[in-house]
């Protein structure tokens, strides 16, 4: 992630300056913002949306929304710009999912996943991130969304419930099911690769 095409000046620019230059619609700064964060935000979108093209589209939408609203960003230490961008991206993704109303609620407790054994941490650590992403992406949409929000992006059940228009209890229940399904996927993967 370097904006080599955008000159050496932008590589060393601080988050704070980058944000303020984007506020002024500085074309070079916009390019640098993309160069620094697009790949990470794209990966975020890929976690939530299995279709790569749609993920790319959502990343663009989020970036554009960021350009429009970067005025409201307040610098809060190193990394706060990415945190802000990620939050905005996740919100954009959730909005889209809700909009196309793919997020139909599955009846709760209709199926109970069998309780798979907890995978060994050391073994899990050896799984490449791309495979992890694959596992998450293969979850059904609702489960995928809840798992992403809660376990990786640090939302609370209350926030998830609000965003997805479900109850907090429902969110916890969905999370349990996604965990069970993932554990199964991990065990199968470990068995297959023989690590």
């Amino acid at each position, binding site marked *: 992630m370097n904006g080599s095409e955008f000159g050496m000046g932008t590589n060393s620019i601080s988050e704070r300056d980058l944000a303020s230059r984007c506020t002024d619609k500085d074309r070079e700064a916009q390019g640098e913002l993309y160069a620094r964060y697009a790949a990470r935000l794209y990966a975020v979108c890929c976690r939530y949306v299995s279709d790569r093209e749609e993920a790319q589209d959502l990343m663009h939408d989020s*970036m554009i929304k960021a350009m429009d609203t970067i005025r409201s960003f307040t610098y809060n230490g190193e990394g706060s710009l990415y945190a802000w961008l990620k939050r905005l991206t996740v919100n954009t993704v959730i909005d889209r999912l809700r909009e196309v109303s793919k997020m139909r609620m599955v009846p709760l407790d209709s199926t109970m996943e069998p309780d798979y054994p907890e995978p060994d941490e050391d073994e899990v650590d050896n799984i490449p991130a791309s495979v992890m992403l694959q596992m998450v992406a293969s979850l059904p949409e609702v489960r995928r969304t809840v798992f992403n929000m809660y376990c990786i992006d640090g939302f609370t059940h209350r926030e998830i419930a609000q965003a997805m228009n479900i109850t907090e209890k429902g969110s916890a229940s969905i999370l349990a099911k996604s965990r069970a399904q993932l554990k199964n996927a991990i065990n199968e993967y470990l068995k297959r690769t023989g690590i």
Partner: protein
Amino acid sequence: MKQWEDIFKDHLEGYEIKLPDSDRDAFLNRQATRERFARRRRTYLTIAVGLPAVAAIIMALVFTISLLSKQNGTPSNDTPQAPANQEQVTSTQTQDDADIFVTLDGDDDWGLPIESAVLSQSPGEEDIYVVVEDAPQFPGGTQAMGEYLKKNQIYPDSCRKNNVQGRVLVTFIVEKNGSITKPVVVKSVNRLFDTEALRLVSEMPKWKPGKHNGETCRVKYTIPINFRLN
């Protein structure tokens, strides 16, 4: 003790999936287009809101001015000046016949009208012109008319005694045969001056009639008649 979800989080949180450079260009182009359109939208909005506002202000101004000029009783339209000797030509409306007439404003000199304008067309009558190519003329010209008026003017005694002076405007029609008809006082001073002015006008010798497009025509004419004491 770390759970497997935490390991997932560690691995996935900052995970990057590189996109080709063309994607950045596509994004930047999209952003530039958006900004251009946003600017255009602002421009259109400004025009859409601004133009009617300006039009409304102008209409309000025009309305106010017309109201004010009606209250003051001043004429609201100016006629062009006669270029021959820079005399002022004013136009106003009489109460009697509501016809427009032209006044040549000057004590001794008379301007030549340059344009033609049909004044009115009452049934059975021929057109009366206000401005013609070839203006009607007092025999011997305007200077001769000034001398005629001075020579024949009878200053009313009571006005002389009371030191009353003034200027009466009389409008009349110079017929095709040069005779003077329908003299009317359009700017009155007092009854004595008005009567004397009408007498002077109706007793004038026959004029040289006005011509327009090579044909003699009836022309409406206005002259000032001054009453001055030395």
